[in-house]
C-alpha cells in the first residue's frame, strides 16, 4: 500500500480545450469575454460613427469654458465667470457635504431606533416599529418634497422678522428659522485661533490617552479611576484657558436682517436641510432594521451569561452584544451608506445644487455635451461609492471575529 498512483497526466492537446473538464471552463470564459468585448467595441464604434455623421465628437473642452451660471451654495470660491469644471467641483463638494451629514445622522437615527425596537417597553417598541415601517415604505423623493414643502409653508419669511411688532423672532437673538433655511452664528477665525484649535485637538487625544491609561490600570492593578469628569476636564479646561490667554481670537458672527435677507452668520439652506433630513430618516429606518437583525443574531445565551456575571443591561449591550452584533451590522450598513450617497442625486427636486444639478443638470443643458457629462457623472459616483466601500471594509476587517 505504499505506492500511490498519480492521476494520468495527459499531455495538452487542442481537443482537450473542449473535451477536458480542466480546460473547458476556460474555453467558454474566453469565448464569453471576446463576445463581450466585441459588443462593447460595436457600441463604442456605433456611438463614434453616429456622432461623426452629426458633425459632433466627444470632447471635454467645455469644462474649461466659463459656466455663466450662479450656484447658491458654494463651499469654494465660485462665480458665473468660473469654468464648468469648477462648477462641477462645487457640485461634487455639495454632494459630499450632504452625503457626509446624512450618513452620520442616519447612523444615529438607525442605531437608536434599532436598539429601541428591542426595548422591553411596549410603547417604545411599537413607536419605533411605526417609524421604521412608515419611513422605509414611502419613496425618499416623497419625503424630500414633504419636508421641503412643510418648511417653506410653515416657517416665517425673513421679512416677518422685520419691524417693531414682528410676527417672528430669532431664538436667543442668534438663530433664525426662516422658510429659506436656518441662519446660525458663524465663527470668525481671528489671528491666533489656530493655536486654540490645535490645543483642542490635543485635548481630544488627551482624553483618549487618559481612558486608555485608566483601563490599563484597572486591568493591571484593579484600581478603578473615575472616567466621566476627568474626561470633560481634559477636553475643555486647556482649550478655554488658551482661548483667554490668546485674547479671545475666535468670535461669533451673528446673523441679522440686511436688505432682503438675513446677512452674516452661517446660512444652512432649506434645500440642504430637507435633503439631509429626508435622507437621514429614510436610510435610518433601514439601518434600524440592520441593527435589530445584528443584535438578534447574537445568541440569547450571551446576554444571560453576561447577566449571570453581574453586568447591568446597559453594559451588557455595550460590552457584550454590540461588539458581536457589529460583525453582522457593518456589511449591510456599507450598502446603506452607498444608497444614501446615490439617493442624494434627488437633490434637484428641491433645488439643491449637487453634482447632478450642476454637471448633470445646468452644464449638460447649457452646453449640450450630454454623453460627456453623463460619463463624468458615472465616474464620479463610481469613485465615491468605491471609496466609501473601501473605507468601510477596512473598518469591517478591524472588528470582524479574529480567528486564531
Amino acid at each position, binding site marked *: 500500500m505504499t505506492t500511490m498512483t498519480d492521476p494520468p497526466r495527459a499531455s495538452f492537446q487542442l481537443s482537450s480545450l473542449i473535451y477536458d473538464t480542466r480546460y473547458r471552463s476556460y474555453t467558454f470564459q474566453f469565448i464569453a469575454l471576446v463576445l463581450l468585448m466585441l*459588443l462593447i467595441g*460595436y*457600441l463604442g464604434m*456605433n*456611438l463614434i460613427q*453616429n*456622432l461623426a455623421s*452629426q458633425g*459632433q465628437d466627444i470632447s471635454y473642452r467645455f469644462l474649461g469654458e466659463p459656466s*455663466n*451660471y*450662479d*450656484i*447658491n451654495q458654494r463651499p469654494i470660491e465660485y*462665480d*458665473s*465667470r468660473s469654468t464648468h469644471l469648477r462648477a462641477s467641483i462645487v457640485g461634487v463638494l455639495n454632494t459630499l457635504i450632504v452625503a457626509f451629514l446624512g450618513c452620520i445622522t442616519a447612523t444615529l437615527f438607525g442605531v437608536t431606533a434599532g436598539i429601541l425596537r428591542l426595548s422591553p417597553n411596549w410603547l417604545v417598541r411599537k413607536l419605533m416599529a411605526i417609524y421604521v415601517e412608515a419611513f422605509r415604505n414611502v419613496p425618499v423623493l416623497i419625503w424630500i418634497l414633504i419636508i421641503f*414643502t412643510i418648511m*417653506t*409653508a410653515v416657517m416665517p*419669511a*425673513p*421679512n*416677518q422678522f422685520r419691524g417693531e411688532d414682528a410676527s417672528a423672532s430669532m431664538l436667543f437673538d442668534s438663530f433664525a428659522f426662516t*422658510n*429659506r433655511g436656518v441662519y446660525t452664528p458663524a465663527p470668525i477665525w481671528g489671528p491666533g485661533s489656530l493655536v486654540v484649535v490645535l490645543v483642542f485637538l490635543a485635548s481630544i487625544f488627551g482624553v483618549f490617552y487618559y481612558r486608555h491609561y485608566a483601563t490599563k490600570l484597572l486591568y493591571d492593578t484593579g484600581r478603578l479611576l473615575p472616567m466621566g469628569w476627568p474626561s470633560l476636564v481634559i477636553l475643555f479646561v486647556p482649550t478655554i484657558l488658551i482661548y483667554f490667554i490668546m485674547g479671545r481670537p475666535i468670535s461669533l458672527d451673528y446673523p441679522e436682517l*440686511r*436688505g*432682503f*435677507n438675513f*446677512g452674516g452668520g452661517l446660512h444652512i439652506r*432649506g*434645500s440642504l436641510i430637507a435633503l439631509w433630513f429626508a435622507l437621514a430618516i429614510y436610510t435610518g429606518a433601514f439601518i434600524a432594521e440592520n441593527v435589530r437583525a445584528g443584535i438578534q443574531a447574537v445568541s440569547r445565551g450571551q446576554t444571560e451569561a453576561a447577566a449571570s456575571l453581574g453586568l447591568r443591561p446597559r453594559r451588557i449591550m455595550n460590552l457584550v452584544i454590540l461588539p458581536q452584533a457589529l460583525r453582522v451590522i457593518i456589511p449591510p450598513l456599507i450598502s446603506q451608506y452607498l444608497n444614501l450617497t446615490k439617493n442624494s442625486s434627488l437633490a*434637484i*427636486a428641491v*433645488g439643491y*445644487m449637487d453634482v447632478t*444639478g450642476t454637471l448633470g*443638470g*445646468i452644464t449638460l*443643458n*447649457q*452646453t*449640450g*455635451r*450630454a*454623453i460627456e457629462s*453623463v460619463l463624468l457623472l458615472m465616474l464620479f459616483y463610481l469613485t465615491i461609492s468605491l471609496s466609501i466601500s473601501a473605507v468601510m471594509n477596512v473598518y469591517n476587517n478591524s472588528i470582524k471575529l479574529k480567528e486564531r
Partner: protein
Amino acid sequence: MKRTVFLGTLTVAGLAAGASAAATLDDVKARGKLNCGVTTGLVGFAAPDANGVWEGFDVAVCRAVAAAVLGDASAVEFVPTTGKTRFTALASGEIDMLARNTTWTFSRDTDLKFDFVGVNYYDGQGFLVPKSLGVSSAKELDGATVCIQTGTTTELNLADFFRANNISYEPVPIETNAEGQQQYLAGACDTYTTDASGLASTRAAFENPGDHVILPEIISKEPLGPLVRHGDNDWGDIVRWTLNALISAEELGVTSANVAELGSAPGGNPEINRLLGTEGDLGAMVGLDNDWAKRAIAAVGNYGEVFEKNIGEKTPIGLARGLNAQWTDGGILYSPPFR
C-alpha cells in the same frame, strides 16, 4: 445637443440610428395625429381647461398645423415638457414640433440641430415682485433671493445682469413654473424671474394679482417661437408657413369669421386668393392641398384673434400687443409675402 442624447440612447440600445427625420409629414399623416410639445402648464400659453382640453397661445400654433396637415384641429396629442426635457423630446422624435415659449438662440438653432421656424412672441426677461417689497427697479434687488427655472436662457441672463450691475443675489433653482409660483407666494424667494409674458400669465393665476408688480426692466431679448428638428426641411416649411399664414391673415384682414366666405371664390386681393388657395398652387408646393391655410385660419383664427383670445388685454393675463403688433401698426410682426 440632445441629438447626442438621442444617438447615445440608440447606441446603447444597440440599434442602428434610424435617421427617420426625413419624413415627419408622412409620419404625422400615417398616425393621424400631430404630437406637439408644450409647457407643463402656463395659463394663456398652454394649459388644459376645466374639461382637460388644452388651450392657449402656443397650443393654437399646434392646432393650426394639425388643421393644415390633417384637416382636424383636435387631432393633436399634447406632450407636456419641462425646460430640461423639451429638447430631448423633440430630438428623439417623441414630438413632431415644439411650441413651448422657447427662445430662439444661435446655439439651439445650430449646435442642438434644431430649426426655429419663426417667432410667435417677442418677449424679454422681467422680474415679478410683491408690491409690499417696495422695489421699483431691478437694480434695487441687491442681495435678493431669486427664483429661477433651471435649464433656461433666463438662468444665464440673470447671472449676466447681476454681474453687469455689480449686485449680488441668491439663486433658487426650480424645475417648473408651478413650483416657482409656490415658492414665490410662500415668500421663499423675493422675486421670480422669467419671460415677462410668463410672469404676466403666472400673476394672473394668483389669488390677488394686484399685490404683485412686474418691474420695468426687461433684461434680455427672448424671441419665442416654434421649432422642429433640423434636417427635415419639408416639415419645417409647413410649420413655418402655417405660422406665417396666421400672421399674414391678420395683416390682410382675414378672420375666422370671414375666411369661409373669402375662400369660397377668388376675390379682389390676389394675395388673399393665394393664401386661401383660390388662386395659384401654393399648397402643393409644401406638400399639402390648397385649402391648408384656410383650414388653419378657420380653426384658430388669425394671429390677432389668437392673441386677443388667450393673452390679450381682455384676458386675465392682460398683455398689450407692444412689439407683437403688425409692422403696419408699429410692431415688428412681419410675415414674408405669400407669392
